[in-house]
């Protein structure tokens, strides 16, 4: 029924004689009326299309009617309003443009699966290629090209996959693991480097001479490098692992009282404005008088803006209160500390595959505010030592 009412309508009042015949005249000129109401004997109120206003006014003037236009509605209003709010429209457009532009930048470069060394290499290579945070993506080569070149140019990686996920570049590194060169072994025996009781043996090459639960002395032959029938043995490099229980004994000391300087947790900030050589404290002038003992740290404030941070000419000095503190330990606590200290010490001396299986406190002595312990440890470790076979023996 109604044509293009969404384009724009206007409420109008018409006053004068013979309003009906005016409406008839308008309708015959294809002017559409809506919601025609009579407001008084000589006036009506109606809604017409904005595009008909010119024709409508012409007819009304010819007939000497008084017309008035009231509120408007529809697209036309939006158009008019947007003319008034030009800045707003510009804002919307600028936002869209900015969003579009920013989404075309690189926001993150991720490297996955690389050791720190190779990761550093890949990162440096990427940066040199311009592949870093804040760079426009359109300047960069397609991922396939980057992938090929990075794989060729960065050493230490077999393959590097490059993938663009939105605004992020993801590097997937597969590192080279060069096969360890088989060391050329000279013929040798394996002997014990400590006294102990054998727990477990694993012989790869050679002939085992001892067996589990044997007590061995330092220097005793464990695995022989001479194999074959008696009288015509061939010398090979013996290889294997002999786990044996060994013993250690040590003395450890732990104090009953500990004195040190520690932060109390209270801090006070002082802010200094500094520009070139000029500087003055504008906040927290009395900070250095606040505490008896303190520790200070100074850093420059910066304003983080996306991927750059703008340094401000403001320095912040943090005063941390410190205090001398004394901690008293009971004898049991001190013994506990001593035991863990002793264990740590021993673990540092031992190989990675060694295991402490038992520890026994043999003696405890307290004097001079110290606890002195004598501890015996049972350890299972590899006691193998290499002894070359002299050729011609």
């Amino acid at each position, binding site marked *: *029924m109604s044509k293009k009412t969404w384009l724009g309508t206007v409420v109008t009042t018409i006053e004068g004689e013979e309003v009906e015949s005016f409406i008839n005249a308008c309708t015959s000129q294809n002017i*559409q009326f809506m919601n025609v109401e*009579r407001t008084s004997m000589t006036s009506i109120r109606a809604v017409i299309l904005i595009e008909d206003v010119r024709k409508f006014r012409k007819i009304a003037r010819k007939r000497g009617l008084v017309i008035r236009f009231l509120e408007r509605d529809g697209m036309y209003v939006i158009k008019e309003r947007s003319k008034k709010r030009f800045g707003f429209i510009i804002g919307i457009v600028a936002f869209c443009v900015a969003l579009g532009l920013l989404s075309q930048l690189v926001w993150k470069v991720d490297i996955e699966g690389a050791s720190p060394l190779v990761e550093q290499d890949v990162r440096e290579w990427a940066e040199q290629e311009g592949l870093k945070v804040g760079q426009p993506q359109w300047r960069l080569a397609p991922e396939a090209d980057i992938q090929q070149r990075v794989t060729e140019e960065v050493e230490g990686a077999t393959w590097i996959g490059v993938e663009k996920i939105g605004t992020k570049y993801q590097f997937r590194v597969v590192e080279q693991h060069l096969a360890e060169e088989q060391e050329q072994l000279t013929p040798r025996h394996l002997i014990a480097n400590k006294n102990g009781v054998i727990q477990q043996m694993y012989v790869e090459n050679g002939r085992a001479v001892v067996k589990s639960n044997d007590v061995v002395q330092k220097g005793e032959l464990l695995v022989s490098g001479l194999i074959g029938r008696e009288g015509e043995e061939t010398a090979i490099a013996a290889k294997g692992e002999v786990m044996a229980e060994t013993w250690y004994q040590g003395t450890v000391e732990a104090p009953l009282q500990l004195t040190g300087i520690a932060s109390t947790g209270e801090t006070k900030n002082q802010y200094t404005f500094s520009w070139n050589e000029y500087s003055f404290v504008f906040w927290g002038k009395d900070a250095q008088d606040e505490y008896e003992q303190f520790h200070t740290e100074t850093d420059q404030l910066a304003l983080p803006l996306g991927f750059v941070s703008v340094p401000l000419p403001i320095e912040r000095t943090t005063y941390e209160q410190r205090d001398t503190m004394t901690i008293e330990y009971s004898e049991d606590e001190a013994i506990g500390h001593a035991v863990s200290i002793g264990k740590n010490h021993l673990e540092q001396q031992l190989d990675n595959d060694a295991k402490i299986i038992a520890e026994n406190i043999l003696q405890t002595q307290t004097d001079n505010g110290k606890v002195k312990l004598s501890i015996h440890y049972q350890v299972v470790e590899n006691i193998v030592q290499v002894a070359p076979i002299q050729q011609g023996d």
Partner: protein
Amino acid sequence: MSAISKKFRKLISKGMQIPIDVTLGLPRVTMIGHLHVYIENHQGILSFTPERVHLRLTDGELIVVGQNMIIKAILPEELILEGTIDEIKHV
């Protein structure tokens, strides 16, 4: 409309089974309850008040009596009345 033309149109209407309002330009009045009246083929408004609407037709006049009536829409040949319709008279 002359008498011959009228006869001819009636004949066509009968022969081709076309509704008589189309061929003769007669008004078609549709009422939806007592809320709306659709009038097609009107020839203009003669007078209009909330209680009484007087329309011209090809032959005769139409008087609609009711309360709080407004002209919902008016096009060259179509007219929609809204309000409480009490009476429609063809004179």
